């Protein structure tokens, strides 16, 4: 296996084999990342390709800073591609009208929740309305703050925080439902 720097250099030079290796290493992770945002397999696949191809063009702006920095860089780039697409499709301009999510759910048993299969969690996230899904993904999983989110998708920081609260409430009731259904 090549080092990350070498892989990047060969990919930029158009080495097909290296590009295949880049794909083998990162495609399924980036695909899952895209799916987490768009909740549609075909579209996620498309976005993942777009992101990888964009990466090929912009490898010169990649600065190696230790193992794993290539994935971190790819991940950032992919999130940007995804957000751009969502914005283009103007999916993010529509803030959901339904306001009152039931609050005051009983506390979730985090230990029991550890046993929930990742794909089930994925489906729960995928089933959020798109604005909530985007905010939740950016804030809770991909490590953006409300300021970044507000700038990226064109809402206020306050709005971002309140959408996040709704996303959490909705997910929480999903998790509790799931735990109840599976008898834990």
């Amino acid at each position: 296996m090549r080092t990350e720097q070498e892989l990047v250099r060969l990919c930029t030079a158009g080495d097909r084999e290296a590009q295949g290796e880049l794909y083998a290493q990162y495609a399924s992770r980036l695909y899952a990342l895209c799916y987490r945002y768009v909740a549609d397999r075909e579209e996620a696949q498309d976005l993942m390709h777009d992101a990888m191809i964009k990466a090929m063009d912009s490898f010169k702006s990649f600065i190696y800073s230790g193992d794993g920095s290539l994935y971190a860089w790819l991940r950032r780039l992919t999130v940007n591609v995804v957000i751009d697409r969502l914005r283009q499709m103007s999916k993010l301009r529509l803030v959901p009208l339904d306001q009152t999510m039931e609050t005051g759910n009983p506390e979730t048993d985090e230990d029991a929740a550890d046993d929930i299969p990742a794909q089930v969690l994925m489906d729960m996230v995928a089933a959020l309305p798109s604005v909530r899904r985007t905010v939740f993904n950016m804030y809770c999983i991909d490590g953006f703050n409300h300021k970044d989110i507000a700038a990226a998708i064109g809402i206020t920081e306050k709005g971002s925080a309140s959408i996040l609260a709704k996303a959490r409430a909705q997910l929480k009731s999903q998790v509790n439902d799931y735990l109840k259904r599976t008898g834990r």
Partner: protein
Amino acid sequence: MKDFDDIFKQRLEGYEMKLPDTDRDAFLNRQATRERFARRRRTYLSIAVGLPAVAAIIMALVFTISLFSKQDDVPVNNTQTPAVQEQVIPAQGNEGIAEDDADIMICIDGDDHWVTLDGDDDWGKPMETSVLSQSPGEEDVFLVVEESPEFPGGTNALMGYLRDNMVIPDSCRENIIQGRVLVTFIVEKDGSITKPVVVKSVNHLLDAEALRLVSAMPKWKPGRQNGQAQRVKFTIPINFRLDYYKNRTKATATESAVEDIMASTKDKTF
């Protein structure tokens, strides 16, 4: 709250989903085509400029020919029995969309909008279909007319209609089956809808629902050519999107349903 977020963060950050086996090659082909094209970009730039002009000329020619052949007024093959109305529901896939193996790629503006043509000799093809005989003995069906057919009340009304009448089958809801179904149909001279066909399928239940929605539409305003009502082929995308997880009953129309409605006249991929 931090702990709750961690349930998701720990499991989903870096989570991998399985891709179709063919996906890797598709990606590599796409990248290879791009690299090849980047080298030849300058050569094709002139073609990109010339294309609209050529297209316009071909369009004009085809239209003239069609006028002549209509004057002949002799139906071809009218000995055959009338074609049975059929609904073709192809398997999932991107029928008719030329992709990476195209011989010519033309970049129209910037890097993101590509027009692909299948081969050097096929230039006229999309144009020739602008008037096409659907089947022997039937009247011509137009793809392009001066005045497009219209849903009563316009595109927004059509979106409203689809949104209000869409019923997503429970089993699709439970299994989170969603996506975009493309349906083509013919708007007859009296505005009625015939021959709805699914051209891009998602799932047989959603396909059936899309066909139901299209068939149940009220009469359209027919398309016109030279002031005469004509039969026109039309394509609409119907987006089935689930907003809520599994057993939620409240699948609202918010953010869901339909996006960009487009006429087949504007989309040459079919």
